């Protein structure tokens, strides 16, 4: 009888949680091939070499059009860049400020600054992009069903439109994008970025690296979160055992 109750409890709980997994099916119309990511699973961490290459892709390609306004230059420490490197990277941009004379001026960027956006506002972005707005990349990985698999599939999903498909003006064919038409031209290609660590910059490699970088930018707390999580789970497992033993002890003189 008590076994039955536990099974039932488990089923209900499973069903309740399972409902959540039912919902996301909605938006994904194309099968997204699953990639192996270093940051998956309860012990997953970011592949720092890959994330650093991904930063190069971001710097040389994405950042020309996409903002990443929630992230700070100091966040780059999480992918293994040194303080000196971060200072140098931040100093490459000019940040608007008010000078001592009260007049608008600019200063060199600091590690504590947010990543500089390529356009001052949405209208400027649309004007420069033929009416399309490049989405902010701070939490882009979390804002798409399928997360990293989706971004990777999108970046590698460009091709010539199949015969008979009529494309809108300035639109590009992509098998992953909803409606198969995307304003962004294929951003990556073989050799698009120059890697400094000897890795061959194939399209797939660039897509994988930039996806890892964006995953880090969207979840900079992930490694700390999982580390703490493992400790919390171990503690709770031990506490459960002790509590259950005490319960057995207290109840030992009660006859059912």
């Amino acid at each position, binding site marked *: 009888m*008590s076994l039955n*109750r*536990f099974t039932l*409890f488990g089923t*209900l*709980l499973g*069903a*309740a*949680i399972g*409902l*959540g*997994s*039912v*919902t*996301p*099916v*909605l*938006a994904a119309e194309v099968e997204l091939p699953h990639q192996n990511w270093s940051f998956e699973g*309860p012990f997953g961490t970011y592949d720092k070499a890959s994330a650093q290459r991904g930063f190069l892709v971001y710097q040389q390609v994405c950042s020309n059009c996409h903002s990443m306004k*929630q*992230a700070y230059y100091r*966040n780059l420490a999480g992918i293994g860049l040194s303080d000196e490197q971060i200072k140098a990277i931040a100093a490459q941009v000019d940040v608007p400020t008010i000078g001592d004379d009260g007049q608008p001026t600019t200063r060199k960027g600091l590690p504590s600054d947010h990543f500089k956006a390529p356009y001052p506002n949405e209208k400027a972005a649309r004007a420069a992009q033929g009416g399309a707005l490049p*989405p902010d990349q*701070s*939490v882009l990985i*979390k*804002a*798409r*069903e399928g*997360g990293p698999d989706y971004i990777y599939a999108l970046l590698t999903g460009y091709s010539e439109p199949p015969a008979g498909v009529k494309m809108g003006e300035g639109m590009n064919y992509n098998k992953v994008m*909803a409606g198969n038409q995307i304003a962004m031209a294929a951003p990556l290609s073989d050799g698009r970025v120059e890697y400094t660590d000897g890795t061959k910059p194939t399209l797939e490699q660039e897509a994988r690296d930039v996806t890892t970088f964006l995953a880090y930018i969207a979840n*900079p*707390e992930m490694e700390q*979160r*999982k580390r*703490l*999580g*493992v400790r*919390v*789970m171990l503690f*709770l*497992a031990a*506490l*459960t055992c002790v*509590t*259950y033993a*005490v*319960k057995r002890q*207290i*109840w030992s*003189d*009660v*006859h*059912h």
Partner: protein
Amino acid sequence: MVGLHKSEFKNPVINWVDTRLPLFTMMTKEYGVFPTPKNFNYFWNFGALAMINLMIMIVTGIFLAMNYNASTAGAFDSVERIVRDVNYGWLLRYVHANGASMFFIVVYIHMFRGLYYGSYKKPRELLWMIGVVILLLMMATAFMGYVLPWGQMSYWGATVITNLFSAIPVVGDYIVTLLWGGFSVDNPTLNRFFSLHYLMPFVITGVVFLHVVALHITGSNNPLGIEPKSSQDTLPFHPYYTIKDSVGMCVYLMVFAALVFFAPDYLGHADNYTPANPLVTPAHIVPEWYFLPFYAILRSVPSKLGGVIMMFGSIAILFVLPWLDTSPVRSAKFRPIYRQLLYVFVVVCITLGVAGGKPPEGIWVVIGRVCTAYYFLHFLVILPLLGKLEKPLPLPESIANPVLTPIGGGPLPGGAMAKPMEKM
């Protein structure tokens, strides 16, 4: 009743306080020696778990509110700032967001326990009805909380749900304008939702207090659904049930922690990581998972007012459940047909949840409608008739003597039974 309380506490300080305000006597009476049926199974953990969950939500919520910016321009960024820059802000936010889901999981199981063991039946009707009030308050709180991050689902969910009130004849549009504080979901809406979202948990706490008071008047139901007859049938709440609830709490915290630390966004919706945009409607607007069955009922009715009435009716019907179920026997253990039909009902509710998450097209419309019809059929037809038609199994004589009355009755040898009482 006027006069000092005769306190039995030896400690002079406690005695001094207790004589003037008998809080310690009350706690001992209600949570120490409180006579509790000895045959609870682990389903009886979920009331305590819901209480713990409420406290977790209030504590994390207070700290989140210290860092949250309730404005359409700042809400989304302030939530991201909490996750990125506030010390352990990610923990606060993920505990709070997943805590809402955990709260509904716990409360739905708590309600299933009530349905299975007939805990809503005389004399616990009012206890059950207060519980339904808590459920309604929880739903309102959860809905308004989901609006606060000001993502796409926040905005469009708020638009869809507040628009439901426009279905009310004559005054509907005025009510919606009042809810919005304007003519669309906008900054005033976000401000009032934040204010109410902060207020409601304390209202819930008050109603939970009434729920517990009512429980301590009637005493708890138990898996056999028969009233305790003597002290042989009960145990003092402490230490027996404090420790049993602690076991349940540990397991509950493990499920909770697994979500928070390893899958914090699993139960959420990706669209809510895109800032609210009144000019772009998401492809499918869906509420959080715990509202999906009700959302399916809403969409199953072709008329807007009809759908709204059915959706609220699906919860309102719980208020009169004690009178719809005509069977004098509480526990499904002794109601073989009811037990099977209750499982069917649970499957129907879960199917409604799945249907609520699908686009309302094709087979899902049909499934949604059939399940909606069955949901009401269960309460309005099956329960009243079943109570009259079903032949319940024989009930045991007492909790301590779970021998079925007609066969081999009579008391057991007393020695073994008396032993637990020595601990008091």
